[in-house]
Structure formats: C-alpha cells, structure tokens
C-alpha cells in the first residue's frame, strides 16, 4: 500500500473527480475524462494577475479549478474596468474562443491565487478527431450552454426595452 501511494499521484484522481462535475463534460465517462485531462493545459495565476484583457483575441476556454476570478468590463465613460461577475471553482468562461477567434467581450483577472485548466481550439479539434464520442458530447454541451446564455441575454434585452 505504501509503495502504491508513492507511485500513484492522488492529485490526478482529484482532477478527474473535479472534471466530472463540470457541466461541459457532463455525459463523458470517468475513463474517457482521462483523454479530456490529457488535452487540458494547467496554469496558476497569482492574485491580481491579468488572465486576459477585454479586446484580446480569445483562444482558450478557462475552467476555474481553485481560487476566484473576477470578470471585468471597461466603462467607456470613466475608462475604468468595472467588475461584471465572479467565477468560482467549477465554473468556466471564454467558451466563444472554442468557436471563433474574436476579441474578448470582457477582461479576467485572478482575485486570489488561482489554478485554471485551459482548453484550446486545436485540442478540442484533436479530441473530435481522435475520440469523436467525447468531442460530440463537448460540442453539444457547448451548443446548449451558448444557447442558454444567448436566450438569457435576449430575454434581458427585451425586458429592458
């Protein structure tokens, strides 16, 4: 048992368990999540570090693994970045980057030391090619999430009219 715990990295198991709870990967088996983890890039941001600025070209989807992230929007009148939302562990943002490389509509900064997983478009394409079942699940979840966010925005816009 001692030798096994020496060889085995408990952190990996924690990461797989974490990915199971992410809505984007809902419906993917635990075994297949290994391939998803293989495609993700890990990165740690220190408190106050800018993850990306508003207007930067988006290239990856970010999944918050630990720590809080603040999304900000520039106020054109004051020229200052104002908080828009706070992202907690288990939540993700920047999913539009997986579909098209367009300027980010908001900025993101680490509110505390934060660990994120990044999914790049090339890696998603690679998953779609090598493991179509996983790719299809992610693509359909992505479409559902985008549709829900678009609906919420449209309803908010019609309510304010």
């Amino acid at each position: 048992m001692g030798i096994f715990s020496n060889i085995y990295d408990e952190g990996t198991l924690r990461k797989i368990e974490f990915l199971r709870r992410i809505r984007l990967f809902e419906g993917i088996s635990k075994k297949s999540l290994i391939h998803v983890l293989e495609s993700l890039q890990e990165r740690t941001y220190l408190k106050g570090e800018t993850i990306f600025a508003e207007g930067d070209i988006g290239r990856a989807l970010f999944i918050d693994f630990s720590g809080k992230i603040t999304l900000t929007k520039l106020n054109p009148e004051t020229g200052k970045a104002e908080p828009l939302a706070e992202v907690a562990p288990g939540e993700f943002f920047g999913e539009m980057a997986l579909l098209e490389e367009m300027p980010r509509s908001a900025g993101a900064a680490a509110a505390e030391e934060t660990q994120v997983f990044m999914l790049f478009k090339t890696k998603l394409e690679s998953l779609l090619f090598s493991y179509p079942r996983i790719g299809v699940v992610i693509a359909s979840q992505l479409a559902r999430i985008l549709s829900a966010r678009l609906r919420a925005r449209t309803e908010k816009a019609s309510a304010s009219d």
Partner: protein
Amino acid sequence: MLDKNFKTLAQFLLPALLVLAGLYLAVQAGGAVFPLILSAALAYLLNPMVRYFEVRGIKRLYAVVGLYAAAGAALAAVVYLLVLFLSFEMESLRETWPLYARQLEAFVLGLNAKMVTSYPMLSGLNLPEKMNRLLAAGPAFILGLLPMLSLLFLVPFITFFVLLGGSGIIDYILDHIPARHSEIVLHVTSRIDESLGNYLRGILTEAFVIFLIAFTGLVLMGINYASAIAIIIGFSSLVPYLGAFVGAALASVVAYFQFGTFLAVFKVLAFFAGIRFFDDWFLQPYIMKRAVKLNPAVIVFALMAGWELGGIWGVVFSIPVTCIIKETLAIAIELQETEFQWKPAPEPTRISIPYT
C-alpha cells in the same frame, strides 16, 4: 515619455543578452550541443508516452523509469533478433562476397567496354577506377560512423533527465512573462506541438509499416539479406519518398546477382512500386491526416538545405524543422489577420436573422 520608453527597452535587455550569450555558447561548444539537441528531440518523441501514464495517476518519475525499463527490455529483444537474423546474413555475405565482388567487377567492366565501344567519348568516365575507389572508401565510411556509437549511450542518459524535467522550461518562461500573454504563448506552442507531433508520430509509424511490408515481401520472394535490406528501407523511409527508392535499388542489385535474370529485378521493382502506391494511397492519407502538409518540392529543398547545413543529421532534422517553420508562418499570418484585423472574418450565416 522618454523615461517610460527606456524602462520598456531596459526590461527586455537582460533576457535578450541571456539569449545572445546562450547562442554564442551553443556556437562555440559546437559538437557538445549536438547530443543535447538529439536528446531534446528524443524526449519530445517519448513525452506522450510518459504523459499517457501521468494522466492515469502515475507520478512522472515512476512513469519515466518504467518507460526506460520497458524500452530497454524491448530494445534488448529487438537487438537479439536482429543479431540473430543479421549474423546469418553477414556470415553468408562474408562467404559469397568474393563471388559477388567478381560478378560486380565483371558487370561494370563489361558495361564499360560496351559503352566505350559504342560511345568513345564515355571512356573519360573511367568507370572501373571509380568503382574501385568506391569499394575502397566503404570500410573508411563505416569506421567514420563508429564515434557516433557513443551517442547511443549519451543520448538516452541526457534524455532521461530532460524527460524528468517535463514542461519545466516552458513553465519557467511563462512564469517570467506578463500573465496576460500566457494564453497566446500556449496557443502557439500547442499548435506547433499538434502538427509537429502528428508528423513525427506519423512518419515513424509509416517507416515501421514499410519495414514490415518490405521484410515480409523480400522473405517471400526469397531475396538474400532480406532483414538487412528491410532495416535500411525502414530507416530511409524516415526521409519522405526515399524508402521505396532505396529499397528498390538495393533489392534489385541483390536480386540480379542472386538470380542472374532481369525477371527477378522486374519482380522486385514491381513490388516496390506497389509499396510506393500503397504508401501514397492508403498509409499517408490515414496516418498523416492531421500532420503538416508539405509540398514535395519543399521537402526536396529542405533535404538539400539540411545536407548543406548539417550533413546526414541535417537531413534527419530538416523535415521537422521545416514543419516548425511552416506552422510558425501559418500562425504569424493568422495573428496578423486576427490581432490586426487585416481582413474581416466571414460570417457563418446571416446574423441579422433574429434569435428564435
């Protein structure tokens, strides 16, 4: 304003000086850097295997040690089998070599005599003397390769530590650049890794499949030295288009001297033409589907440039380096289009249709 510009310049000064010093050291160290480059390339090829175990929960150290143990055992088995096969063939070559050498000499002398009779101006070519010089240069060439054997021990040793380090160098660089640029740096490295990795894994698989087909075919045709020829074909297949041509040339010569008829040569040529078509129509479209596409003209240019710059190792590294250059250029053009918006992105559909 001037002060701000100076500060901006000053922060790049130290990294630029360090890079220049590193390049100077690499140029001065010359041959000593070479095993390091080879080790880095080997580590890059082996890394997906280590990563395979890492994402399944095995600590990197144990994954690397396990990989080395498994690779060592596999290598020992392959070397044993090769020695077994090759020793028979080498023994037979040693016995039959004087006969083959006489046949070869007679063939070249006969050909030379015919050519000189028909076309007297060809006597200037002096083929017999050239052939003797070529045969005499053979052992010297083989002896010249002996120092490379030290690489067989040095490269795996350095590779072990490079593999243990993992992506440490990239992480270190990312930790020392503004955090905002991490996304673009990782985007560029993952793009290059994706296409280069696919190319390298593809070409290794292709070379192995061609080796297996060539070995089986040559054994079935009863050609002597089938395993030695198949190994040379396998290695030369790492250079695009070369494998089948080298195989056809070598096996034709052996077939001619073994059977003494052009029918045997024709069979060998037909077999290797079959391999070439199978490679072009079935293997490459499947294996190299997601790799960088390189134009044959670019490949030939890259191989020639590689030979000029670094001899045989220049040829080996020419195609991977060309892949990196091509992908970097493609990314640079894309960056110009997205970052500086040279041209508007095409709309996937008429976006004025309202959301329903």
